[in-house]
């Protein structure tokens, strides 16, 4: 329980710091880089190294590549759809979360499981 609480606080703080950096930067496309900052990864990997060791963190890092490829697909699709259609950001970003799950799971399965 206490480890989860520490993860929550460190993760929340790390994400907030990168989000604030993104907020104050211009132009928008440059600020957007910080939307893909490794904030959750830094918080999680730091905790993982302390609790389970660096070999365990290396396996997480390997899978994270699949997650990052999925992030690229997800963010590119959000950008295209927001530019072309009159949908609100909240609906586009939430409705495309299954795309992230499918691509991340698909890459992980075909590259490392099969």
């Amino acid at each position, binding site marked *: 329980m206490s480890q989860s609480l520490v*993860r929550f606080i460190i993760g929340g703080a790390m994400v907030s710091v990168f989000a604030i950096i993104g907020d104050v930067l211009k132009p928008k496309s440059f600020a957007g880089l910080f939307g893909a900052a490794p904030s959750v990864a830094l918080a999680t990997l730091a905790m993982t190294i302390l609790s389970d060791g660096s070999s365990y963190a290396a396996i997480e*890092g390997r899978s994270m590549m699949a997650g990052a490829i999925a992030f690229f697909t997800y963010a590119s699709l959000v950008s295209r759809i927001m530019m072309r259609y009159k949908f609100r950001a909240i609906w586009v970003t939430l409705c495309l979360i299954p795309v992230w799950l499918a691509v991340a799971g698909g890459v992980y399965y075909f590259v490392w499981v099969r």
Partner: protein
Amino acid sequence: MMRIQVDLSTLAQTQWHDYAVRFLFGGLITTLAGIIAKQLGPGIGGLFLAFPAIFPASATLIEKHEKEKKESLGLKGEARGRIAASIDAAGSSMGSIGLVVFALVVSQFISRGRAWIVLGGATVLWLGVSVAVWQIRKAL
């Protein structure tokens, strides 16, 4: 070449609950990634280190700010809000290329060198690769 600027006035536009939402989602996904790794192993858990946890909240916030800015000038702001969110998402897609490099460096070097140096170096590389991709994209 396009100049990168720091505009602190945007911090005043952001309300405390916007910060709270991002802190909450960031904390939740970090906790969740740890729980998933414990239950299903580091292979599945690692996927969630690149989950777009705060993306919906950030995109909605950008759309809202741009819309309000235009409407305060008496103009319709909906289209501008959508375009701003789209441009921000395009930036994030470039940042995610840096994120792949971050993950690659961590997976290859974290168990060989000092973990903190590897994490720091991977973060610097994430920024370097992301900025390089952004500059190349702008130059095209």
